[in-house]
């Protein structure tokens, strides 16, 4: 991909830097912000005076107190460069020739376009969905980062390659000695997911080691645990139906225990692979006692990464429940408790409870 070189302004926050990067890789331009706060992006349908949309390239926005006019067949709106509907034929001699959509059907509804293919979220806050929920801000599904719709294998591969190169570049900034296997870039979607997931996890671990910043690892922990939870739930349910698993009290209790234990075990192996000790000495702790007060009481979250506790559960939990209150009262003072539930149970099943 040959793209024009662009510079991200100095002093912007890491989150803003990632946002600007995602826009640059999509449009080839870095948006600029004027002194009055109006952000100017590359878009020929913006009124350059105030950044508002017009109905034609280079046009003027409709005054705010007037209802917008709708262009009918054969006539456009917007002065000075407004669209003149023609028969849609490009004529080189015509002043300001434009390609005009005529009678095209509405595009089918998609899952929101491919913007996520360019995103590089690195914290749980960047991963949450901006909507209200009675329980807490819901989290996106673990693999929504790969939610690319429409393009064929070549385009998907190009997008994934750009992602991989970006992450690898971040890794080399953290650890110039990081030597990555230089085999052929995977062609299959599964292989590409595996590669991006692997690189993201390594970047998160190196960010923790080099900068002491745990936020990327908190996000990757969630993404991995969510995938493991979904897998354990589906397989556990299937095997219980086949009477292939021992049941002590009830099927639900057994399923909950199998999911908990499976997710913990897979996480242990995942952290071990990345050289992260999660037995209690470091900031990553799996199923360890967390002291509450000074009188020997404790709580035991499934996972703790820094000041974030994670609880894998089949049922929804609220901050009013004793277990969750206990987590928040633990001496490590969690800033949030992330409830991870099988995605099969419904939309927005995993969410954040804040202190």
């Amino acid at each position: 991909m040959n793209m024009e070189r662009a510079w991200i302004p100095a002093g912007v926050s890491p989150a803003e830097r990632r946002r600007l990067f995602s826009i640059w890789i999509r449009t080839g331009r870095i948006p600029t912000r004027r002194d009055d706060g109006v952000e100017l992006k590359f878009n020929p349908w913006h009124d350059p005076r105030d950044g508002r949309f017009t109905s034609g390239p280079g046009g003027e926005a409709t005054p705010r107190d007037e209802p917008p006019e709708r262009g009918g067949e054969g006539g456009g709106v917007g002065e000075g460069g407004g669209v003149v509907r023609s028969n849609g034929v490009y004529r080189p001699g015509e002043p300001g020739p434009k390609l005009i959509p005529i009678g095209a059907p509405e595009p089918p509804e998609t899952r929101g376009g491919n913007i996520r293919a360019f995103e590089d979220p690195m914290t749980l806050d960047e991963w949450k969905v901006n909507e209200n929920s009675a329980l807490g801000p819901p989290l996106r599904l673990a693999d929504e980062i790969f939610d690319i719709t429409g393009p064929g294998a070549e385009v998907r591969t190009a997008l994934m390659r750009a992602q991989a190169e970006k992450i690898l570049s971040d890794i080399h900034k953290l650890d110039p000695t990081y030597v990555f296997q230089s085999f052929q870039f995977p062609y299959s979607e599964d292989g590409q997911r595996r590669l991006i997931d692997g690189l993201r996890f390594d970047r998160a671990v190196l960010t923790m080691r080099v900068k002491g910043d745990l936020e990327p690892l908190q996000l990757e922990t969630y993404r991995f645990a969510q995938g493991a939870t979904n897998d354990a739930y589906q397989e556990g349910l299937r095997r219980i139906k086949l009477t292939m698993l021992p049941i002590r009290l009830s099927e639900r209790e057994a399923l909950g225990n199998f999911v908990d234990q499976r997710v913990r075990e897979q996480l242990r192996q995942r952290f071990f692979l990345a050289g992260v000790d999660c037995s209690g000495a470091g900031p990553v702790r799996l199923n360890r006692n967390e002291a509450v007060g000074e009188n020997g009481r404790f709580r035991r979250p499934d996972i703790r990464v820094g000041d974030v506790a994670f609880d894998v559960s089949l049922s929804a939990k609220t901050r009013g429940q004793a277990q969750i209150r206990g987590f928040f009262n633990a001496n490590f003072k969690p800033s949030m408790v992330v409830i991870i539930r099988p995605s099969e149970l419904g939309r927005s099943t995993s969410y954040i409870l804040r202190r």
Partner: protein
Amino acid sequence: MSDYVFRSPLASGAPFIPNNLGELDDQLASMMLEAPTFVDRLGFLPDQTIDSRFHQLDTALSRVKPKLGAESYAKAVDLSVRAKALFLSDPDMTNGKTKEGIWLLDEISKLITDARRRRVKAKLRDDEGEVTGD
């Protein structure tokens, strides 16, 4: 499944071995969801096989032998050998041996639970100095 394998340069190459009774019990539950083939469904352990899984189990059993006690340890090793043989004889889950093998893994899990209960009752401390049964 893709044939692409991501190998992190951060990985040591050595297999993970559970360190205490609780971690071992988690591994047994996990194995019950993988039997009889023990293929890694999440795609991050491409080299996992029935042999590697039972190597982890047997090594972990020997690691926790002092906590388990000699008698329970001997029983657990025997159950492990029998379970592996059953899984190998039912690779397609068609003859009921997989279920028998899973029940044997559950027997090992019960031995571990008993050992943890004994340790809590005796107020024995784990590696972090706490009474957790580990």
